[in-house]
């Protein structure tokens, strides 16, 4: 396997929770995988299998116990302090299950936050915000506060915030988890659009087969290791959906 065009390259990733002299729990036991440039990858697995843990390592919210994580050429595990913050601010876009919008800011200010952190001029900022709002069709929501938005609308604003600064990868941890099926579907279509039109890699953690069927490739995590992997290839979505269901059936046995 070559990793030259990989956006994410994970090697022997281990994560043990708990301090040395406390009760320890090994959540990840040596993961290896890559995400290629402009790939849409799904990560599935039972509850407690380590999906969130993995995503936290990739997005530098947590630190691995062992192993290497390289994102867009940066060795994440070697970063410290401000480098980590800057890395999150510039290289990663993140969509959370609970939206993570700041309720004291309008949608527009929420979306602009990553740009403000970079010190982008307000003119360019306005332009970027309106561009992304256009793409996600939330232009008419910009002046509203999160408390005035529906769940689906909130998640679209969150998605806009995640991509407004053109990160190298967009990660989502169950972003559809709190949405109804229509909103969920809209968001997934949106992620597909972002992936294809903005040429952004997407890494989606989900336990919902329907959500997963939008991906090009799916990694199944079991007991802290990658158990198996399936590719969509040329199949249409419903066929892939079926394949996922089958895989889950055998996987869970």
């Amino acid at each position, binding site marked *: 396997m070559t990793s030259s065009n990989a956006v994410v390259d994970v090697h022997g990733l281990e994560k043990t929770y708990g*301090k*040395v002299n406390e009760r320890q729990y090994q959540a990840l036991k040596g993961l290896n995988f890559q995400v290629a440039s402009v790939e849409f990858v799904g990560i599935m697995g039972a509850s407690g299998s380590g999906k969130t843990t993995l995503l936290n390592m990739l*997005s530098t*919210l*947590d*630190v*691995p*116990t*062992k192993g290497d994580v390289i994102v867009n050429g940066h060795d994440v*595990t070697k970063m*410290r*302090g*401000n480098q*980590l*913050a*800057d*890395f*999150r*601010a*510039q290289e*990663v876009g*993140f969509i*959370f299950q609970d939206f*993570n*919008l*700041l*309720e*004291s*800011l*309008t949608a527009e*200010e929420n979306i*602009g*936050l*990553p740009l*403000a*952190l970079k*010190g982008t001029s*307000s003119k360019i*900022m306005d332009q970027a915000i309106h561009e992304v709002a256009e793409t996600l069709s939330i232009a008419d929501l910009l002046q509203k*506060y*999160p*408390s*005035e938005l529906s769940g689906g609308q909130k998640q679209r604003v969150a998605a806009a*915030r995640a991509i407004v600064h053109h990160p190298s990868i967009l990660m989502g941890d169950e972003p559809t988890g709190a949405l109804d099926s229509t909103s969920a579907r809209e968001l997934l279509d949106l992620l597909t659009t972002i992936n294809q039109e903005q040429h952004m890699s997407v890494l989606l953690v989900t336990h919902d087969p329907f959500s997963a069927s939008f991906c090009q490739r799916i990694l199944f995590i079991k007991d802290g290791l990658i158990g198996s992997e399936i590719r969509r290839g040329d199949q249409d979505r419903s066929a892939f959906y079926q394949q996922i269901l089958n895989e889950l059936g055998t996987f869970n046995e």
Partner: protein
Amino acid sequence: MLGKLALAGIKNRRRDYLVLLAGLTMSAAIFYMFANLATNKAFVKANGVVGQSMLIFGFGAVLLILITIVYIMYANSFLLSMRQHDYGLFMMLGAKKRRIGQLVFLETLILGAVATAIGIVLGLLMSRFLVGFLLNALGLHLAHLESFYLPAIIATAVLYVGLFILASLFNLVKLTRTTVLKLLHTDEQANQPQVKPVRQMIAGIVGILLLAAGYWALANIKMLQMAAIPFAIVTITLGTYLLFRATLLTIIRWLRQTKWAKKHLNGFLMGQLNFRVYNYTRMLTIVSLLFAMALGAITVGSGYHRQLPMMADSLGSYTVAIHDKTAKEQQLISKLDVAHQATYTQKRQGKTVFYNAAEFKQQPYEFNEGEMTPKYEKKTAAQMKSTDLNSLDFLNLAVLGQNNLYAPKMLSATKFARQSGKTVSVTTIRVKNIGNDRVTLKKLNQLEMARFPHAGELTIGNYQSYELMLAFFGGLEFMGYFLGIAFLAMLASCLMFKILSGAPGDKRRYRMLYKVGVRHNLMRNGIAKEIGILFMIPGIMGVIDVLFGLQMFKPLMPKPMSPYLGIGSTFAIFIGLYAIYYLITLALYWQIVLPQAPAQAQAEHK
């Protein structure tokens, strides 16, 4: 069952409850101490100009009661904000409103009763030690001071329990009237206040007018008497509130439009302020009031402390006059910081005291010619006129008996040598600062008085005048410091409530910022700015309040004293203290709110 759940909720927020209880306890203790001083008639009578002293302590009591009411209201809102989520949850799970109401009522009342009880005990202990300590430090003597005084205990208990019953009723009504959803989501509710420019304008103008009315009332306290205080407190509080409400929101809205708001965390900061501006307005108003009270009281206290020696100095030319000084007295004199000293020989014969003109040539006598501020002038015997010889200061150097003084007469050296009579040497000493040499002067005065007792109403030297004035104004000085410290403690506690009630929400928000990739420094600075603004606004307003409010002490500080004299250093010290308090608060907030980077794991990772 529900009671158990409620208890569990309290246990979960042990720290917050402890802070609340500590604050209320302290407030009750302070009130007891003051009530003890103010209601103890024997004590008050023994320590001041009778008639005026009751008024003065009454004024202090009114002030303290009003502030206590405001303080308890604020503490209660903190309690309510802590509890509403829990109670909302119980209601959602099907608990009856009536039952919830009972619980809330009981909880508030029990908390209040416990705080009052502990507070009174604490007040008893503090009366014993703290008040004694403070008096000692100030060099004041207050007679008939007892730590245990039943009427004061009753007054404290009645006021506090009464206030807590009111607070319980208020909480009961408030909780049972609010919808469950609102109770559950108070934290996330963005009540985006409407900006109506005309209304804002009107509110601002009314606010300024109210402030002006309050300041006017304070300046005219002589005319309005006791009514001035409650009037001023109400108008200034309302005025400050309206002014803050009108201006803060407008300023924040305006700042939000600027380019500045789009840089780094500025937008977030403005959003935070805008989001919570109404909560903040209340908090800022109360803090500015407490700030003003604390600063004002301490300014007055230190004003007396500084100016009483000054006033004493303006009355005569020497601090003490020692007759036939002994070795022990000489030892004490050598410890003084002397500005002028001279020794003359007297010969007392019949009703006349004779002086040697030659001695006055060598060491001219120093007269105080100043009206308000001392102006010293040295004169030899030749320069002295008969008015000088008969000035009270000079006459006082030789006391014959009650209301009876020797008549001074100046003789040439040869005539003086031939003059018969009892020979006495008298040493006049003027120190640079009576206040600094208080302790030594006191001993010196005691030794002198033991050897040459004279009638009480006669004061010889500025030190004795100073002691007399201390008896007059010492109560006020003490009250200034006492109330100042009390208000400062309440201020600290109010800010602490704010921190604890704001911290959980902020913790969540800063965690979000952390995830989005905001640098640690940026978050630190953001918090420093936000807390800094919260400290600065009431500070500025408080200083303005004090500058106007000091007017009210003009009648109580007769010339040459003035409530405004030398306030610079007091302000500087107070603001220094406030700044230290800011830094402590900030450190605490940082600790509670800032997300911890996973450093532990980092260390383990090779």
